[in-house]
């Protein structure tokens, strides 16, 4: 087999033409394939929408180097559906076909073409730089190298960046949740403050005044933050500090009608 290929190589190398006979049709074919991929990736949603298909309405491109993004997008879409109180439905067939098609292209077809060409060229002891006869197989090999390397690089960079992104998103969401929990705590304190004003003194209230209000110990410190009040006759100022993010501070006032206002956010809550 090796001898045959070597002989073939010798025979072919005697042909000094730079372009083999099938090169130009191959080039045109590949250009068309790439163009179709690009157009499909960029405009498939719009195109399918115009043509009445409801199957492919996702914003994701049909072709991606990272098929896990489809499964990930589907999980988040389910989360949004649940958030809105809508019923979840099983994944539709078109999405499953897209995922499978991408897996087959990325993990089966491209690596197989690459490894077969790689093996043959290893035996022939040729590298990509030695390709001087631009045949169909050379173009396919070059393309498979580009795609295989792109996939490998994408995987590696995604592995690093997705971890960093996750850390960043987790941090941001944790701050937001802590802030929302503290707002709930503050609204509860504001409720206690105002009802204190409405209750007569013989029942432990302020009888029309805020002065004398003391925050209950279980409200002064919760798992979210610590809270302190400053009272005057007709206004209360509440200051809250996050326990999770000590720089996160919220200040607000409660007016004589019990309405909260002047919400001020400091530190990580700004």
């Amino acid at each position, binding site marked *: 087999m090796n001898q045959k290929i070597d002989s073939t190589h010798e025979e072919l190398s005697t042909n000094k033409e730079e372009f083999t006979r099938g090169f130009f049709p191959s080039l045109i074919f590949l250009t068309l394939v790439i163009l179709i991929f690009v157009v499909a990736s960029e405009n498939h949603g719009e195109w399918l929408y115009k043509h009445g298909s409801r199957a492919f309405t996702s914003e994701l491109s049909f072709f991606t180097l990272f098929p896990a993004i489809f499964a990930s997008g589907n999980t*988040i879409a389910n989360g949004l559906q649940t958030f809105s109180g809508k019923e979840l439905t099983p994944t539709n067939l078109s999405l*499953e076909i897209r995922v499978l098609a991408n897996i087959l292209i990325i993990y089966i*077809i491209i690596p197989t*073409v690459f490894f077969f060409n790689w093996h043959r060229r290893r035996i022939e002891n040729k590298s990509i730089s030695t390709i001087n006869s631009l045949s169909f197989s050379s173009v396919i090999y070059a393309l498979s190298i580009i795609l295989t390397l792109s996939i*490998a690089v994408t995987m590696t960079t995604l592995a690093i960046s997705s971890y960093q992104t*996750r850390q960043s998103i*987790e941090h941001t969401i944790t701050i937001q*949740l802590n802030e929302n929990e503290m707002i709930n705590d503050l609204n509860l304190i504001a409720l206690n403050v105002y*009802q204190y004003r409405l209750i007569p003194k013989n029942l432990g*209230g302020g009888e029309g005044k805020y002065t004398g209000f003391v925050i209950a110990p279980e409200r002064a410190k919760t798992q979210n933050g610590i809270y302190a009040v400053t009272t005057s006759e007709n206004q209360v100022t509440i200051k809250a500090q996050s326990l999770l993010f000590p720089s996160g501070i919220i200040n607000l006032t409660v007016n004589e009608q019990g309405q909260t206002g002047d919400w001020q956010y400091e530190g990580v809550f700004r």
Partner: protein
Amino acid sequence: MEKSTITIEIKQEVSILLLWIVGGIIFVSIAFLIPPSSMELWPQFYAAGVAAIVYLIALLSYAVRKPVSIKARIIAIACFVIALGALTFSSIQQDKQSHWQTDKLMQARSVIGRGIMLVKIPSPLLGTLQAFHQQGSTKKENLAQVFQRLNDNVSVGSNIYKPEYEGDVLKIFVQSLEPDRVELVSQETYVKGRNSQFKNYNGQKGMIQEKCILTAKGIKYESEN
């Protein structure tokens, strides 16, 4: 070397290549179809992914066979392991991240839901408390009567909340109306609370439920689930 022999060799190689591709496609497709259809795509993705890894390992073993040099083999295997490791790691990261985001989304939804209830449930009770104590030391009306007067004579089981915008699904029910005690309750219909066995006001199980109890001493806020 005859030209026909070269053609046969190339045809053979193309045939083997096509055989590998077709075999891989069938193998991975079958694996993809094994998990039952669900709301998630991850089971299918992982099943196909495992099959693809098995296929790629077999393909690599085939590609690095002799007479490929040892140096080339080592480089190819090393690159393959790095890419495969990165693929596995990034896929698991994506899975974890998307589920984590979904969980946090629902956590945020529950915090928002509780926050809305916290503001909306006490509101009619504060008005009742104010009117009740404004009567002075001699009370003409008890708490229930004041509450009914201010809220269109509602009875136990009534929803006293008026939607403020289209799609506002909040409901506040009168749970108890006694001379010295008024209880209001509000619940979510699809956001889960802390205890999955908690029995909600409307008969559901495990949903968020918040409650306010009004007495002459004030409003007691209870986060029931």
